[in-house]
């Protein structure tokens, strides 16, 4: 319950359109839970939200060190949001290392909420503050507003009547922070109280303790003299409907299941553990009651080849990995292309090359997906634009693979995989159907395994089908019969037929739309993949400032939507921001002969809307 205190009414309430909070602390500080609780409560309240967690690369990095800092960034607002925010308005730090690691992410003049107990000598030295200088007291944070609270002490204080040990008491200090922020942003505590009751069901002493600390945090804001401003972030005008939260990897898993259900086929998922794709395997393995066969293979090659075997037998074969794992799958992709069987390959891209930056995001595998195989081996490539779009594009990947009898690449990345946002989920009946070209009966005596329909697609005849025994393989095959053929004319024909089949998929995907702006704008920003949110935000602001900018975001990268070239040619200038050294820009320049210019970044981090804005303004002036 929200306490009513006479003081509350006196305190000022400032309205904010959107706020970005970054929670940071040791992995053991409950940062992810605090962040997700605040997100859920804000979503329930009706704000739009976008979140992104930041885990340390090492599983058990030493406590109190910079390497051990875990973070959770949350952007919530009364307006539509498309990113977890560039820089934050509030930085919550549980110790000195968390401050040191994240101070550069805070806007000047904004708020630091610091647990002063995390700034003792030991913590300061672990964080590398020279000579034990305490930033909270040495004046170095003069450009920010610092709210110092001894959260550890106040938490213990709130629990002094309980029988819990000190360690157990300290474990609930994240609830103090949460309570304080609920006060600061005028949030109700009930959703979190309900969560605590469910989480600790059967342990009444823990329920009581966590709720007591949550309330203590709230009351502290209310009664503390140090702080006089509260903020209000009104609900966002989101389309009406029922929402849930969704993360990118989870959305991919659900999208795959939904598509296989719609196709009436079983899902086979062959995969080898790799960051940041493993969560798809975990999610799918939980849904065996949807006839999901998840297979943890001995290596990346077995992961994809087992999926090819499953597709041969009539399942939708699916595999996922990240950069280095995708490289290992290359040969098998060529086989799938040659066999003309459905297959979905998901690349949750990360920083490369080689092992690179496993926990960081990048978009540097686009050319690998489009061109990275021996021989002429075209494969459709599509890419989601946001965590919830991962659902739609996973569904699309299965649809294209099954209906066009081809492997399909789905390019996600680390940023989408772990990012979360509200999703107005569809009803199963709203989803399209997927029609597999399976032939169950021999139509005529001269049936051939590589006969094609008007779309250039062959039929899928499963082992077990009477009278239709046939052999397929990786050697070049004779047109129609599929028998081995080394004939030069036939090879030319087959290469052309396979390329044509993929090119014609353009007839079965939506036309490209302009996301914002006029198709005659002075500058078009062309994007793909996870950069959508930052660019959308930047273009909105630019347009609000009167700049003549448009935004086109591609979700289909091979083949491109049919009207892409025509659209691009209508702009004065084209800028292509990518988290690589310029890959899509090469493709559109060669495909459409347009003078597109790259904007590249390879820091393992997403673009900020500010970076895009600045570059756009420069491009407009040049």
């Amino acid at each position, binding site marked *: 319950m929200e306490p009513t205190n006479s003081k509350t009414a006196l305190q000022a309430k400032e309205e904010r359109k959107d706020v970005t909070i970054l929670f940071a602390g040791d992995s053991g500080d409950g940062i992810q839970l605090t962040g997700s609780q605040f997100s859920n409560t804000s*979503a*329930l309240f009706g704000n739009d939200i976008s979140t992104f967690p930041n885990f340390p690369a090492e599983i058990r990095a030493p406590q109190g060190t910079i390497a051990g800092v875990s973070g959770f960034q949350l952007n919530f607002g009364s307006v539509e949001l498309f990113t977890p925010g560039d820089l934050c308005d509030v930085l919550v730090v549980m110790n000195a290392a968390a401050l040191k690691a994240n101070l550069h992410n805070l806007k000047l003049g904004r708020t630091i909420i610091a647990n002063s107990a995390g700034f003792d000598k030991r913590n300061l030295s672990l964080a590398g503050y020279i000579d034990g200088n305490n930033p909270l007291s040495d004046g170095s944070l003069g450009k920010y507003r610092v709210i110092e609270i001894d959260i550890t002490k106040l938490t213990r204080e709130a629990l002094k009547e309980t029988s819990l040990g000190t360690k157990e008491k300290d474990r609930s200090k994240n609830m103090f922070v949460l309570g304080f922020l609920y006060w600061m942003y005028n949030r109700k505590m009930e959703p979190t109280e309900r969560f605590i009751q469910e989480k600790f069901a059967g342990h009444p002493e823990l329920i009581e303790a966590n709720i007591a600390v949550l309330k203590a945090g709230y009351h502290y804001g209310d009664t503390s003299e140090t702080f006089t401003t509260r903020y209000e972030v009104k*609900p966002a005008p*989101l*389309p*009406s*409907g*029922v*929402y*849930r939260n*969704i993360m990118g990897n989870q959305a991919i898993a*659900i999208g795959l*299941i*939904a598509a296989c*259900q719609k196709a009436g086929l079983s899902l*086979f998922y*062959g995969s080898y553990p790799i960051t940041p794709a493993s969560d798809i395997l975990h999610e799918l393995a939980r*849904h*065996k*009651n*949807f*006839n999901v*066969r998840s*297979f943890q*293979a*001995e290596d990346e*090659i*077995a992961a994809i*080849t*087992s*999926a*090819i*075997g*499953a*597709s*041969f*037998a*009539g*399942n939708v*074969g699916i595999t996922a990995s990240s950069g280095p794992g995708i490289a290992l799958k290359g040969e*098998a992709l060529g*086989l799938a292309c040659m*066999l003309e069987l459905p297959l979905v390959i998901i690349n949750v891209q990360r920083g490369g090359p080689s092992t690179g930056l496993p926990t960081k995001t990048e978009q540097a595998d686009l050319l690998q997906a489009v061109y990275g195989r021996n021989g002429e081996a075209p494969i459709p490539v599509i890419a989601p634009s946001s965590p919830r779009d991962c659902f739609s594009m996973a569904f699309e990947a299965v649809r294209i693979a099954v209906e066009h009898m081809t492997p399909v690449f789905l390019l996600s990345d680390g940023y989408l995989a772990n990012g979360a946002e509200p999703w107005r*989920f569809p*009803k*199963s009946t709203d989803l399209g159907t997927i029609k597999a070209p399976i032939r169950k009966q021999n139509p005529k005596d001269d049936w051939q395994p590589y006969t094609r329909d008007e779309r250039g697609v062959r039929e899928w005849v499963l*082992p*077990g*089908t*009477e*009278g239709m*025994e*046939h*052999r*397929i*393989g*990786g*050697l070049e095959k004779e047109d129609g019969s599929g*028998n*081995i053929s080394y004939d030069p004319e036939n090879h030319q024909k087959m290469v052309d037929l396979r390329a044509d089949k993929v090119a014609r998929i353009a007839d079965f995907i939506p036309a490209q739309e302009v996301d914002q702006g006029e198709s005659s704008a002075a500058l078009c920003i062309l994007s793909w993949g996870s950069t959508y949110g930052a660019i959308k935000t930047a273009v909105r602001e630019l347009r609000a400032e009167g700049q003549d900018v448009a935004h086109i975001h591609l979700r289909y990268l091979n083949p491109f939507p049919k009207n892409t070239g025509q659209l691009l040619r209508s702009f004065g200038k084209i800028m292509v921001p990518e988290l690589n050294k310029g890959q899509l820009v090469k493709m559109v320049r060669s495909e459409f002969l347009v003078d597109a210019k790259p904007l590249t970044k390879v820091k393992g981090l997403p673009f900020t809307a500010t970076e895009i804005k600045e570059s756009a303004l420069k491009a407009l002036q040049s």
Partner: protein
Amino acid sequence: MSTNTENKLTAKDFSSDQDVRWCPGCGDYSILKQVQTILPELGLKREEIVFISGIGCSSRFPYYLNTFGMHSIHGRAPSIASGLKVANPNLSVWVITGDGDALSIGGNHLIHLLRRNFDMNVLLFNNEIYGLTKGQYSPTSPEGKVTKSTPMGSVDHPFNPLALAAGADSTFIARAMDRDPVHLREILLEASRHKGTSLLEIYQNCNVFNDGAFSPFTDKQSKADNTIFLEHGKPCVYGKDGNKGLKLDGAQPVVVDLSSGDNSLEDLWVHDKYDRFKSGVLMRCFDTPMPDRESLPRPFGVFYQEDRPCYEDLLQEQIQVSVQRKGQGDLDKLLKGTNTWEIA
């Protein structure tokens, strides 16, 4: 798998319309013929059988059989077959592979296939050479083997494929040869009847690049003294007139002369294919016959067999349990998740 008793198929029904293109005299011909001969014995329909191969001379095999088949990529047949079997456990699945395909480039997949124990048959054509690439040494070529890639002789220590299979806990381990069609057919049938992954190593003569690699075991004159044909429950007898036998001295196999009168049949080792430890000793009988000294005979037949649940059955069970617990998947429930809110 349904059985087909009405119109029994013949070997001819299993041969495809493709011309067989191995070198004349290649051991592959005999193996193809024996496989085509035993397939009608399985009581299956043609469409219920799938042959999956990798790359190499032997891997052309599926093209010559009128069943479903896939000639895939180098070394990967075991994992393709694994996915296939998961997707449709009712199919009779055969993996065709060679020493380079299974033990070199595909070694990882083979051992994992064996430990998982999918119900399928692996025919490993061992010719101790790379034939398709024209004569380089393989992971089963003996030390010192002179080939195009080892002009001074190979310094690689070769694999003992059966010991390797045992190390991966294979549930059926057997050896046969191209030159003994009757025995080959018998072992092929045993392999096909085993529920689990059957590994059958077949000595296959590559008469172009490694002619006579197995002649001590296959030639009329030397075969009897250099080979022993294992039979479950029978004493280990061999030799021209059945005059030799194997005895176990502790954990050591010893050759005994039955004609000398010192040993009788009762003293011999009785082969028990269900005995993991003793079958291991037989797999280690891997001597190269030498004219100047007595060596252990090379065993053929079924070395080891074990009953162990198959991967695809265990997976199906989990799917069923999951359905029992949670009900048949409800897509709308999945889409909705556990935590929702409404915006009016």
